[in-house]
């Protein structure tokens, strides 16, 4: 993969100063009587690659969906780049955000889904150019040039004119990564992006993500069961249980010498 030649095309926010980019303040999310996130606090610094691990049902997907505004918190606030995501300040008071405000803040966030969710009615090229043209206002030429750079990055240059169904799962997921990056988000959310893939296709997708982690300064928030991958790319690993962060730290610490017994149990079950 020619990471270096595409580097300039995918560089996101040049000013990575390690400042706080994502902040959850006492975020509570319930589904009926089930409290999935319980007054959750955590922050992610700009440019960091953070992996969320934890048992099934611990709320990892819910966190990403809240950030993507696919779900709303019941209590608490979420800030991205200092801006409230689900609230806005009006006359010094915090009120639920309107559609327009949400859209503005959300533009800084991109997401790749477990099931790819490519648009099956559009060719690969248009899957990638649709939002840059209709959301960012790029011209068709600009958007296509950007898309070609990204297709090169994910190694799919020759597939631009195919429909998603003509591609393998691994290729589709790489298109989905390109589609998310085309919006030049500050934050990329990855929710178990390889778990719907046949085993032999996983490595290709993870290689692309490693490449992106290495060559861009995009902030990554990643849920994965691929522990080797997590170890490679993560600056920080957050261990979740029952809607709380029970332990966090650099991957060497969490994977080799966790403080919490619960983390030890979880890792011995998945490793």
């Amino acid at each position: 993969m020619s990471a270096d030649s595409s580097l300039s095309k995918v560089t996101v926010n040049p000013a990575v100063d390690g400042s706080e980019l994502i902040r959850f303040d006492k975020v509570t999310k319930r589904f009926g009587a089930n409290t999935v996130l319980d007054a959750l606090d955590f922050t992610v610094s700009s440019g960091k690659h953070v992996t969320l691990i934890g048992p099934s049902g611990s709320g990892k997907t819910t966190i990403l969906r809240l950030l993507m505004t696919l779900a709303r918190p019941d209590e608490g606030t979420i800030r991205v780049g200092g801006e409230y995501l689900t609230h806005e300040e009006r006359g010094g008071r915090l009120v639920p955000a309107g559609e327009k405000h949400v859209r503005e803040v959300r533009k800084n966030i991109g997401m790749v889904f477990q099931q790819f969710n490519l648009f099956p009615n559009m060719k690969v090229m248009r899957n990638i150019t649709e939002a840059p043209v209709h959301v960012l206002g790029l011209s068709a030429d600009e958007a296509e040039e950007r898309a070609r750079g990204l297709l090169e990055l994910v190694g799919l240059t020759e597939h631009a004119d195919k429909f998603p169904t003509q591609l393998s799962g691994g290729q589709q997921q790489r298109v989905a990564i390109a589609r998310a990056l085309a919006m030049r988000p500050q934050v990329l959310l990855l929710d178990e992006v390889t778990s719907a893939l046949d085993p032999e296709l996983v490595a290709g997708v993870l290689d692309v993500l490693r490449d992106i982690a290495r060559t861009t300064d995009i902030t990554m928030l990643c849920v994965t069961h691929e522990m080797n991958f997590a170890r490679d790319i993560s600056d920080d690993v957050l261990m979740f249980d029952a809607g709380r962060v029970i332990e966090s730290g650099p991957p060497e610490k969490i994977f080799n010498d966790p403080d919490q017994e619960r983390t030890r149990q979880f890792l011995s079950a998945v490793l």
Partner: protein
Amino acid sequence: MNDWSWDYVGDIMPKLLDGLWVTVQATLLGSVAAFALGLVWAIALRSPSRWVTWPVGALVEFVRNTPLLVQLFFLFFVLPGWGLSFGPLTTGVIGLGLHYSTYTAEVYRAGIDAVPRGQWEAATALSLPRGRTWVAVILPQAFRRVVPALGNYVIAMFKDTPMLSAITVGDMLFQANSIGATTFDYMEPITVVGVLFIVISYPTSVLLRVLERRLVR
């Protein structure tokens, strides 16, 4: 009872074909109206605002659950009293279009519901505006699934056009009726009308089934 007369059939054929042309026009224009209005209802019924969904839902239920003939009479005989009057064919097209839009709305709803939720989520994740999400993502995918069902309603509407003769639209049945009223011989005109209906609707429904197999894979 008279014997079947081919000469008589030959004499009345031009008038019946005039009627057929009116019937086809009413069906095609009515279909366009039903397709467009039904889409408006289907999208309105998905609005987050109750101020939209409630009145539209009530209108759709009301129109669907009252007979087409009553609606045609209302449009043709009552509305002019309120200063709204159209020619018979226009009234017929409005009536058919409105009535069948309540069925096409249901077809669209099912087609839209069948688009996976992940498509909406991907559109949200890309910040696509709502209108663009409908036009570029949801409707093109829903369309493939709804074509066969919409086609069936076109055939049903075609077979309902004789009702328009009750509001003096010169469709096939109207022509056959007026021929019979002067010759006192209804057998040939009414039989020919029946045959013309099946000659058109049967091949159309076969064609639709072929289309269905192609689109829904």
